[in-house]
């Protein structure tokens, strides 16, 4: 087990940068008073951010991912998360096999 001082410094600096990103939103924004329009904007944030995170992985990678995304939506309407994960992964694998 070794710990290079240079690598240690680097890891700690990157830790500071990531923690700053995580803390700043919660600490600063939680104090801001919101009007009705900005409240509506904040309520939409989970959907907007989540969609933005996954859109490229689902929409821009080709048909297998896009089809599996559609299947995940349909299965997700009824089934628990664990089932959706398995079905989506199986769909991606099957579609890659069939289409690619």
């Amino acid at each position, binding site marked *: *087990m*070794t*710990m*290079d001082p240079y*690598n240690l*410094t680097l*890891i700690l*600096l*990157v*830790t500071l*940068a*990531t*923690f*700053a*990103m*995580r*803390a700043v*939103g*919660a*600490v600063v*924004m*939680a104090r801001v008073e919101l009007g009705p*329009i*900005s409240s*509506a*904007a*904040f309520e*939409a*944030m*989970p*959907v*907007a*951010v*989540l*969609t*933005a*995170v*996954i*859109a*490229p*992985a*689902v929409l*821009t990678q080709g048909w297998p*991912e896009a089809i*599996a*995304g559609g299947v*995940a*939506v349909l299965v997700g*309407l009824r089934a*628990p*998360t*664990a089932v*959706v*994960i398995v079905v*989506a*992964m*199986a769909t*991606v*694998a099957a579609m*890659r096999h069939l289409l690619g």
Partner: protein
Amino acid sequence: MGARTQDFSAGAIAILPVLVATAPVALLFGTLAAAKGLSALEIWLMSATVYAGALQFVAIDQWADPAPIGLLVFTALVVNVRHILMGASIGRAMTDFSRPAKYAGMFLLTDEGWAFAERRVREGSLTPAYYFGIGVSMWFVWTSGSLLGAVIGSGLGDPSAYGFNFAFSAVFICVLVGFWSDWRTGAVLAASGAVSAMVYLLVPGAWYIIAGAFAGVGTAAALHAKSDDQPPDGILPS
């Protein structure tokens, strides 16, 4: 005490499918980092303190000897700008959190954990015990998985070959389905998804998340400003 333990377990159980999908990714991170010459202790420390999956893969990809500090810190800021938005949203629901608990909670913020915490907020209220049930179990799986990967080394193959990278998309889709309320949700989703995908194809880096998020949030604000309950012509709930 009883209620707290129960809430902690409820959080850990809710996130369990994500833990199963995270474990092989953590193993892969450990093996890749070891292949770049980091020691097992350094790999564990990075997973334990940086604790940001996507960023850690980018950092390892750019790792050299000596590693470029400025580039990596800048990358950390850019890749994780999305956490400002996530923190701003979930921070408003952390009314029962003490100040230290809030900071600890933010340290443990991940995309997946955040999504499940937001889902809990929709269902009722988010207790610290539930949040830490999610966060601590994810931290434990990520750190032990990376350490194990670093120790056993390569030979696992690439999890993306088995569709593991798509597991996380499936998790987020499940959470999104639960967030559906009316046609406005669809408008936010469409704006965010379209802008994110377009920016992803046109602009290098992780800016697509911010661009898509602002498109979605802006759509919600614009719809609220118009403020009528009937959908305008041409936009139907779908």
